[in-house]
């Protein structure tokens, strides 16, 4: 059974008061659940949240399924998102993604064999002037080269 930590529950309760409607707290609550559930939101998390927030499960699923930042499947410790939209594509973003797959032992284009990394090719992240770039969990890394990107990822704890 999934349950939020005490601190997590308090956070959700506060968010439920923070906005005009309780429903607006679904996004922040899902972020919290994702964080505490190892990077993804399982169906069981949705049931739990629905009870905690006293909101219908369909409302939570509607949000979960609409937004790309919620992972509906398990992800690695580091979720590496490489921008492959136009300005990054023009500056080697796609080749960077390919290179990372090779270097990090990501054979299916998605997860590394050791479960440390999940790679996604994503749309514009608003760093087009510092292309190519990647987002690793919350953080942006810009003006990358193939070498610097690999080094950054390998040096993460």
């Amino acid at each position, binding site marked *: 059974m999934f349950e939020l930590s005490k601190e997590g529950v308090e956070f959700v309760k506060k968010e439920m008061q923070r906005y005009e409607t309780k429903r607006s707290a679904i996004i922040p609550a899902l972020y919290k659940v994702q964080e505490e559930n190892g990077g993804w939101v399982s169906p069981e998390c949705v049931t739990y949240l629905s009870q905690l927030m006293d909101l219908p499960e369909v409302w939570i699923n509607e949000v979960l399924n609409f937004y790309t930042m919620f992972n509906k499947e398990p992800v690695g410790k580091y979720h590496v998102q490489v921008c492959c939209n136009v300005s990054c594509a023009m500056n080697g973003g796609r080749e960077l993604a390919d290179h990372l797959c090779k270097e990090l032992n990501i054979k299916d284009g998605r997860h590394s064999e050791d479960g440390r990394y999940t790679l996604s090719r994503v749309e514009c992240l608003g760093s087009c002037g510092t292309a190519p770039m990647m987002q690793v969990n*919350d953080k942006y890394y810009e003006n990358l080269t193939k070498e610097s990107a690999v080094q950054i990822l390998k040096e993460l704890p």
Partner: protein
Amino acid sequence: MEVKVLTKHYDKPEYRSLEGYKKYGGYEVLKKALGMKPEEIVAQVKEAGLRGRGGAGFPTGVKWGFLPNNGEPRYLVCNADEGEPGTFKDRMMMEKAPHQLIEGMLISAYAIQSKKSYIYIRGEYMEPYRIVEKAIQEAYDAGFLGKNILGSGFDHDMDVYRGAGAYICGEETALLSSLEGKKGQPKLKPPFPAVEGYLRKPTIVNNVETLAAVVTIVKDGPKEYRKYGTEKSPGTKIFSVSGNVLKPGNYEVPLGYPLKDLIYNLCGGLKPGRQLKAVIPGGSSAPVLTAEEAERATLDYECLAEMKSMLGSGAVIVIDDSNCMVDLLKVIMHFYHHESCGQCTPCREGTGWLDKIVGSIYKGEGRLQDIQLVEQVSKHMMGRTICALSDAAAMPAISFVQKFRSEFEFYVREGRSKVKEVIANA
């Protein structure tokens, strides 16, 4: 030369904090504004001719004037969803000058008599989110937010909201649905948000840069604001330049500034040996300009409209001759297909078809009639959907195949890109 009005103090790291911001005159304009009548401020914004910086260029003062006088509470919402490919100015503004945005929002909120505002920031912008959240707290602590602000009797509360990854949430009605905790699907307009917006209450949605510009207008007055720019495009604007220039980045210039000066002077031009091939002047939704068009374009709403493109969000994507236009269109079409919310048949099906057709040309499996098909499909996607995403996909598609037709034809005939030969022969 850049003309730094909005970005004048952006090079100072301390400008991010309340103390630093105040050192350079921060919140003085708010004091001035609170001594004016709200309708005076609306009139000044109208007179200044400020046009929305989020993409559509709609006159801000006019939009504010659409609010009904029915005694209902009004909301102000700042659109910081910034998802238009090529755009990265709002992120910089929030990171460098969160208090400028807050002051602009406070003045705007006072002008439209709103007691509550939200800044809706795209989910990926965690760093700007933290910075803005902290700045709001600082503003509360200093008495710029809350009850009876600076003894004026005006109350205002402000908060941030974090999105969760969806380009379509940049569309204002989708943004408001998202803010209500729902999926971000656009709604048919009218009713416009000014009449029925957040929680069905009158709501003004404005872009980050638009709201920050309000500070300048009230500070200097509309006449001074109009010193820069053109009659129909007054003021300065921040352009996000990316792609194949030597010095990409954000540049603030007066509207009406020559595009070629932006590329060759401010951004250092292209890599040695490269030739300009094309420019997308206003984010990926804007029809592409040929090099020849780009050489004579000026960066204002009217010139780019005349060239059948648009200023959009001010994202200038510079394309040199090492790029294959089939490849770039494929990337762009994939994006719109991925981001269509799927409510409207022409958009859902059309973006899917465009993605597929251009993709098959790219794979060398295209037929000559597919090029025409791109145009046909695109034409059926325009002007018949709930929001403008469908048009935003169709317009660039048409412009790419019309303006670079021979390159598309070569690709179809030979099953490969012409560009490699161009480079080899250079």
